[in-house]
């Protein structure tokens, strides 16, 4: 049974349809990467899965159970983690408090998980008492991912985790995503840095105008001359 399944999803904001039938499937041990031009509905798809916009058609399933249009709150309870692209930290809370908020539903495990996150993102341990808003872009992204991991999600949705980061940090984040996935967390992420992201992708989804244009393994998409020409800048 696939971990996360989206079948012919339609939806958008205020009656305007952005998603016009998107299909996606990822298994528990996979990294799925959504790429495509601006306005293709990549982030919208992620938000639709996380219950942040109303889906007007189609279905989304988590381990076979329908979760279409469940509230984010309910989805977090069911083990879904979401890291938005922007405003993904609590700026005036300390790094440590940011992490604790991620474990709001499981306070008993917070202390143990915090230690794991600090081992996973060593720079955060040093800065644990600092307000998260004072950190650099890359470290903020670590706080944001750490916060989502504190709930021990079975599937993690990442909206452009490397947006605005230097290439050094970008590679670092991709490495972390691979490690997270290896630890048994299914990952679905939207990326602008398409080539680099597809390299770590088990599945790639190329969206255009709210529909799947190409769906294949990451490597197959990178090797496809048509995908390369139209979507990866040659």
């Amino acid at each position, binding site marked *: 049974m696939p971990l996360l399944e989206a079948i012919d999803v339609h939806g958008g904001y205020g009656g305007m349809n952005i998603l016009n039938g998107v299909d996606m499937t990822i298994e528990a041990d996979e990294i799925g990467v959504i790429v495509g031009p601006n306005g293709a509905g990549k982030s919208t798809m992620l938000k639709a899965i996380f219950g942040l916009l109303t889906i007007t058609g189609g279905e989304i399933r988590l381990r076979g159970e329908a979760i279409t249009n469940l509230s984010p*709150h309910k989805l*977090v309870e069911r083990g879904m983690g979401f890291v938005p692209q922007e405003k993904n930290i609590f700026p005036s*809370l300390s790094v440590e408090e940011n992490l604790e*908020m991620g474990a*709001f539903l499981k306070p008993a495990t917070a202390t143990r998980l915090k230690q794991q996150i600090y081992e996973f993102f060593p720079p955060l341990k040093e800065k644990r008492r600092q307000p998260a808003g004072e950190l650099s872009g890359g470290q903020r992204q670590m706080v944001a991912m750490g916060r989502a991991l504190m709930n021990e999600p079975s599937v993690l949705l990442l909206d452009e985790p490397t947006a605005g980061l230097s290439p050094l940090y970008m590679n670092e984040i991709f490495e972390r995503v691979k490690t997270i996935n290896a630890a048994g967390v299914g990952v679905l992420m939207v990326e602008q840095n398409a080539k680099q992201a597809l390299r770590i992708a088990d599945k790639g989804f190329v969206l255009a105008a709210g529909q799947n244009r190409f769906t294949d393994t990451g490597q197959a998409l990178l090797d496809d001359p048509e995908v390369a020409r139209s979507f990866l800048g040659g």
Partner: protein
Amino acid sequence: MNELIYFFNYVVVAGSVTGSIYAMGAIGVTLIYSILRFAHFAHADMMTLGAFLVLLLTLLFPHAGEPLGLPTAVVMLPIAMVLTSLAAVGIDRVFYQPLRNHGVKPIVLVIASLGVTLMLQGLIRLFSGTGAQSLYVDARKEIFRLEVPGVTRPIILTEPQIILFVVTIASVIALHLFLTRSRLGKAMRAMSDNPDLARASGINTQLIVTLTWVIAGSLATLAGTLLSLDVAFKPDLSFFLLLPIFAAAIVGGVGHPFGAVAGGFLVGFAETLAVFNWSVLLRPLRDSLPSWIELPNNLALVGTEYKIVVPFFILIAVLIWRPTGLFKGKVI
């Protein structure tokens, strides 16, 4: 020395009393703003409501405080705090929450809170009458005179003033511990920082909203009651509280509970200093002053009856020169 004691009684004590009351009101205003993003104009009436409930309970059980050796009104405080909190949560459910669910602009909620102000004032007046009433029913207010050696004039403190200081310090410490140590307190700060992310983290935002009203309602009850104990209960107390508590919240930087405390004391002391008769302090120097200077009897910056212009002035000055307040708050 007598003059210094006079200064202590009329500025230090009076300023601390006013400051404590403004601080506790302003904390509520600032918390409600940070969680619900609107200026809650009915807050001063929540203070009146709290005091009114204490008056009601005191009239019902006038001797309840005797076994404890405390004024009955103080013993009734916890009950009134619970009732006011319930009323605050109820008002939110009936008036504000439906508007929030419609996704209205903050100004609509502000206007709704003005409606709640009028409603509360009317209701309280209906039951309490329009006159002033003492919260000391069947009892006498204790006044402590502390003799200072070598001075004829004593330091004067009343029982409600001492209770007020203790309660203010305790509430501020408790609030600090709650916001920085407890899971729900941190969640409250998280929601104030980034409500969407709070929801995406699984924080029960409805619970946080309820909690905000409970804290704001309880502090409002404390402030309103202790003010009424010190002076007297009046149904239009809120009229003299609304402007200062908003000035205090804005001076302190909206969204900062401790800024609100600082703002409360700043506004409170500014008020007392402005109405203080400075001539008293100059009197001992009268003999050394050149003869052509005649010391006037009253040398206050503003008359007591115009006290309310002080917070108004502070408010305008802050909004012009430092709209984020002393501690970088949100701009309303």
